[in-house]
């Protein structure tokens, strides 16, 4: 059952047809300038990035202030905006340099910061007041009264805990007038974010300052203590105890989220490839646009779902949005699964006259391979690769050098930023 928010202007009737006038923002992750550009080009309304300080994911690609400036300028051309994650829980030693950092972010035109620690919230308010402040999911925000608290504190937006379901979001939207951002796609914590220090104990890496080593995804054996002794609660052939969640995928719940008036739909994964970002963002873009244009006749298309699966390397599930996730939303036993399609190349240029595509190689391919092209400005299509040339015009049979520039013939027009993928056999 869809719950609809009625007291807010989400929809209108135009010529007897219902349309959604309040489109949610599609928010993409980017771990590098290239990923940011791809995300925006493939339809993201906003992109969140990490800076070199105060953010989680210390090993994700992080942006210098200059790169942020370039990202903001690029996004602006598409009407998109940039947010910077500054969501550590600081220790005393992390407090230095914060003011200058926030002012620099504000100075390059970033729209807002995603933040968990009141230290950063309050500092931002006083030294960089033009930045919007979004509460990070690290605060495990799970009820409407806590949402009200952050509204009273003047925050612009809250990112909900991943444990919040559709009905709970409905109530939050009803009770409090504040922008709500919710995760729709990607890997996630099995614990309440911010409330897990497994990593600190097991590897002395601080999870709440970006050091998380994902100890929750390891295998454990379950025992019980009986009269001071230990009794195994598993048999030899049982899969070990595991806490690994399937990745979140809410593509089929997007209509419901739009009707709830959720303001921003967030895709996770700053460490993921440009192929991942392009595929996921383009599919969510299509679903949001199609639903908003004609909600009453909307039907999710099989091709969209298939397309989304092409960049998945782990099983997916709907997590808490559709109710309490059971065992079938976790992974036990063998975790490995392979991507069905590999990213093979990025289109740099296309010559209409000669029908030659210039491509940057991203994965091995050769003459005779069947590949697929996709992009925001084309319908996806398949092609059997013919003769390949390198930049200097030498004939090649195999494109096997990473980032090598190659050319081959393609009769259907392509555009820069289109991508080529190859089925994994």
């Amino acid at each position: 059952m869809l719950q609809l928010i009625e007291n807010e202007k989400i929809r209108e009737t135009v010529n007897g047809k219902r349309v959604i006038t309040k489109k949610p923002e599609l928010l993409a992750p980017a771990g590098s300038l290239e990923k940011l550009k791809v995300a925006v080009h493939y339809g993201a309304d906003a992109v969140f990035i990490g800076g070199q300080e105060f953010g989680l994911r210390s090993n994700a690609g992080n942006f210098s202030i200059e790169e942020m400036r370039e990202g903001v300028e690029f996004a602006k051309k598409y009407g998109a905006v940039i947010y910077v994650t500054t969501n550590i829980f600081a220790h005393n030693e992390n407090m230095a340099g914060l003011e200058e950092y926030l002012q620099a972010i504000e100075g390059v035109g970033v729209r807002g910061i995603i933040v968990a620690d009141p230290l950063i919230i309050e500092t931002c308010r006083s030294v960089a007041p033009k930045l919007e402040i979004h509460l990070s999911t690290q605060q495990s925000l799970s009820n409407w009264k806590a949402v009200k608290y952050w509204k009273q504190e003047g925050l612009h937006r809250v990112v909900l805990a991943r444990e919040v379901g559709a009905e709970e979001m409905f109530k939050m939207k009803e009770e409090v007038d504040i922008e709500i951002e919710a995760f729709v796609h990607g890997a996630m914590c099995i614990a309440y974010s911010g409330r897990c220090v497994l990593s600190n104990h097991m590897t002395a890496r601080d999870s709440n300052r970006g050091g998380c080593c994902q100890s929750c995804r390891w295998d454990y054996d379950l025992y019980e203590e009986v009269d001071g002794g230990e009794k195994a609660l598993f048999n030899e052939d049982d899969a070990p105890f595991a806490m690994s969640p399937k990745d979140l995928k809410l593509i089929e719940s997007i209509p419901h989220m739009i009707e709830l008036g959720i303001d921003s739909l967030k895709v996770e994964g700053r460490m993921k490839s440009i192929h991942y970002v392009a595929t996921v963002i383009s599919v969510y873009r299509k679903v949001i646009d199609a639903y908003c244009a004609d909600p009453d006749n909307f039907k999710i298309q099989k091709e969209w779902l298939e397309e989304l699966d092409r960049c998945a390397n782990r099983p997916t599930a709907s997590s808490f949005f559709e109710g309490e996730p059971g065992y079938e939303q976790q992974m036990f036993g063998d975790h490995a699964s392979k991507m069905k399609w590999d990213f093979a190349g990025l289109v740099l240029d296309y010559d209409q006259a000669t029908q030659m595509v210039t491509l940057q190689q991203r994965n091995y391919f050769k003459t005779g391979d069947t590949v697929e092209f996709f992009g925001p400005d084309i319908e996806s299509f398949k092609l059997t690769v013919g003769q390949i040339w390198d930049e200097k015009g030498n004939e090649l049979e195999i494109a096997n050098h990473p980032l090598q520039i190659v050319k081959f013939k393609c009769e259907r027009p392509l555009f820069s930023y289109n991508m080529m993928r190859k089925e994994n056999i």
Partner: protein
Amino acid sequence: MKKPELLVTPKSVDHISALIEMGADAFVIGEHQFGLRLAGEFSVSDVEKATKLIHEAGKKVYVAVNAIFHNDRIDALDNYLKEMQRIGVDALIFGDPAVVVAVRELEITIPLHWNPETIATNWFQANYWYERGAKRTVLARELSLDEVIEIKENAQPEIQVQIHGMTCMFQSKRSLLGNYFLYRDEVMEIENRKANKNMFLHDKERKNKYPIFEDVNGTHIFSPNDMCLIDELTELFEAGIDSLKFDGVLHTEGYINTVTNCYRQAIDAYFDTGEDAYDDIKDELLEKIEEIQPELRPLDTGFIFKETVY
């Protein structure tokens, strides 16, 4: 110098008198509907009885309302807070800002203690919540001694530090034990073990054992060791830490009594007689605790002397 408070966790109303005798100054009680990972389960009428008992002895009682609340418990929270106001407990321990809003709306006058566990990591946050009514901050257990001292030096609220017992390292809303049994199609196991608190995860690589249990708040996983600072208290005493907590979750009454008394002796020796008196008895106190320490629970000093990287 002011004596720090010795804060303990009784397992039941009947357990309180023994702990008063053992020298406890203050008690954390509550029920799992509202509080997290408590040593004992106290209904509202138990809280009322416990408060009477504790106040008669001139001691303090704090009630835990530090769950991560979802909408379904927000109304119940209001009623619970009103009951606590009526009973007149000495503090409410919270982590979720919903409690701050509820306390304001209901004009509850009980002081607040801010205890979100893992995220209380700097003095700025302590002062931030102080301005919003939290007269005490309970620090994350993942801090070093230097960090604790620097926070105390810069914080306006009282500072509470855990000095003994296990610490929670993970809370998931999911039913992870139940899911494991369901995955193996062993529904009976779930029923059999619903209330059991004797399970643990074995980490073969690190040879560690992590206690694990489930309740209405989800699945909780605990540190492989009990932290024990009985012989390392001098610097905390000197820093003027206001409250020292021994968390007795998953321990027996007998264990909690003995350990409480050891810390009582340590505090009294230092503050009544002097540092030398404490130094004279601290090894003996440590031995006393080691004697009763369960085999599966080695002692360590938590993060007090351990650096984390990121």
